[in-house]
């Protein structure tokens, strides 16, 4: 005997058609006709196509390969005034690590500035005279790390890496000698043990791109109808406001989801960015954020009369705050309080938190309910405001 749901699934096509003619009918055809037209607009416009598909890939690859704090093959110099077995041992250790390449061996302090000025090295390691002897007799020897702080981040990282190589070395030679064991600091980086940059930028780039595609593209596309005068014809037609808005938004929901999938795949395949938490939750939150961005896009387009205004509002009003205040580049907690307050009204900040939570920490809704509720609230607010502001007539 067939259970009811099985009968449904057997006749699903007939049921669907029945549903279509009963509830949707010509309205459904109207809507689909409108959506088809929107897809034509998108696929025929080179600019749109580039923003939709070229930019996400370009941004991910750029951020992944070019903009990173990780160091690799950094050139350094050595000034060895001792030249004993210890200093040679240490020098070999440094040059055999993947982070450093020994480019210059200098013989005096005067030469150091010269090679910095030429930009040949990022740091110079200076061993004092009788380094090995001091180390053996007193367990106290001096080294100096001089680094080129033109780029402060790199200088910092380089100094830290050299320090930890030196500490490792000291620990090894003191092994087993009582009273000579220093306090050992063992740091462990939770959630991102290798301190990979991708863990930080991928959620950020994903936020920016989804916002851009959803909010900017929608706002421009409605403003375009106004600018080209086609809105006038659309208004004098049986199309309902809701059909126009959803028809505009629908292709972008679809394309944004594809974009999100592409970004996550790129992150995973190229940079090894994992998703620790639930994929289902990630998908739900992403759809929520897309809806939020789309409703914001609609609101912008309702306010602006030309494509240019829509673009300016989207870029100046959305992109900059998102990039600067969402915590994508600068941590929110170290901003002055007025900026922290402003960052709270930016949807991207909350989505960025959610993304990091789900993807990196692997937490569930129990820890993210607040962020989710805020996004949901913002979405409802934008939609209500848009419907109130939508003009069924010309201004």
């Amino acid at each position, binding site marked *: 005997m067939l259970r009811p749901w099985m009968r449904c699934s057997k006749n699903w096509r007939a049921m669907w058609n029945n549903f279509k003619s009963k509830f949707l009918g010509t309205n459904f055809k*109207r809507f689909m006709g409108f959506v088809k037209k929107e897809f*034509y607009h998108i696929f*025929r416009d080179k600019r749109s196509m580039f923003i939709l598909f070229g930019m996400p890939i370009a941004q991910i690859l750029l951020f992944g390969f070019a903009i990173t704090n990780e160091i690799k093959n950094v050139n350094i110099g050595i000034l060895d005034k001792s030249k004993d077995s210890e200093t040679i041992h240490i020098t070999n250790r440094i040059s055999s690590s993947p982070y450093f390449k020994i480019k210059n061996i200098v013989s005096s302090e005067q030469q150091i500035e010269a090679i910095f000025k030429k930009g040949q090295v990022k740091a110079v390691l200076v061993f004092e005279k009788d380094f090995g002897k001091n180390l053996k007799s007193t367990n106290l020897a001096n080294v100096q790390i001089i680094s080129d702080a033109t780029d402060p981040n790199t200088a910092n990282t380089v100094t830290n890496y050299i320090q930890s190589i030196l500490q490792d070395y000291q620990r090894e030679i003191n092994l087993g000698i009582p009273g000579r064991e220093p306090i050992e600091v063992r740091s462990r980086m939770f959630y991102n043990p290798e301190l990979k940059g991708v863990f930080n930028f991928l959620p950020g780039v994903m936020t920016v791109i989804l916002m851009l595609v959803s909010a900017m593209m929608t706002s421009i596309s409605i403003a375009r109808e106004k600018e080209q005068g086609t809105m006038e*014809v659309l208004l*004098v037609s049986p199309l309902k406001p809701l059909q126009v808005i959803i028809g505009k938004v629908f292709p972008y929901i679809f394309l944004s989801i594809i974009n999100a999938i592409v970004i996550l795949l790129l992150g995973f395949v190229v940079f090894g960015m994992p998703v620790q938490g639930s994929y289902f939750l990630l998908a739900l939150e992403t759809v929520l954020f897309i809806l939020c961005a789309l409703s914001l896009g609609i609101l912008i387009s309702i306010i602006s009369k030309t494509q240019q205004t829509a673009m300016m509002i989207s870029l100046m009003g959305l992109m900059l705050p998102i990039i600067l205040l969402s915590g994508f580049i600068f941590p929110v907690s170290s901003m002055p309080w007025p900026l922290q307050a402003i960052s709270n009204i930016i949807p991207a900040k909350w989505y960025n938190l959610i993304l990091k939570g789900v993807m990196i920490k692997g937490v569930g809704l129990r820890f993210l309910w607040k962020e989710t509720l805020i996004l949901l609230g913002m979405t409802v607010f934008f939609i209500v405001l848009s419907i109130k502001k939508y003009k069924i007539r*010309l201004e």
Partner: protein
Amino acid sequence: MQALRDITFEVKPGELFGLIGPDGAGKTTLFRILTTLLFADEGTASVAGMDVVGDYRDIRKAVGYMPGRFSLYQDLSVEENLDFFATIFGTTVEENYDLIKDIYIQIEPFKKRRVVALSGGMKQKLALSCALIHKPKVLFLDEPTTGVDPVSRREFWDMLKRLNSTGITVLVSTPYMDEAELCNRIALIQEGELLVVDSPENIVANHTDSLYKVAAKNTYMLIKDLKDFKGNKSVYAFGEFIHYTHSNSDFSEERLGEYLEAKGHEDIKIVKARAGIEDVFMALSEKKGTEV
């Protein structure tokens, strides 16, 4: 700024009605009120028996509207535009093909071409086809012939006549006075007010001022001297002639001739002529100007 003032008129079902006036007279505003795109501050209007405010939804289903600015999708092809408008009005191209056949057949060879690559005349035909595809009861055409070459204009009016003969009520606005005679009835509009509403024949017949066409070698001086002629009512250039009317009946062509000769004009021609719509328009708008 007030665009329209005290407008009352009626268009009968099946009429080809022309709204004629210069740029800035309020034609587009009037059309937008009738097509439910704008609210009037005061007064009521109804289209096909439905109120433009209360029944705007039904009006939007029943009318066809072609705005003054070309407003089809440039990045869509001819065929895709037509399909789109058929779909959003809940019909298909096949269903009403008879109605647009005469017009559409001329652009059908280019149906795969994107609109952006069409000539002005072809765009106009496509826009008309799109406005017609849902078989509207009333068709609003806002300045459809502005910026169109004379041959295409003529063709366009022939198409309108044919459409009108199938029973569709057509309201068309135009700044070209010579298109007035092609309408069943017209309204002359100037600075937001209607000057007269009647058939073009009646409007001309009711115009009693006798009109003279005057020409001479030096047109510029001729206008100046005619304006100095005692008793003149109106003087304006109209193509190669100056149209002249006199304010009272003690006028003779001989007296004007002598006056002009005395002023030193050569090759003087004075011919009594029938007034056209433009003459009536000038006379009426001048009369209105003196009243205010």
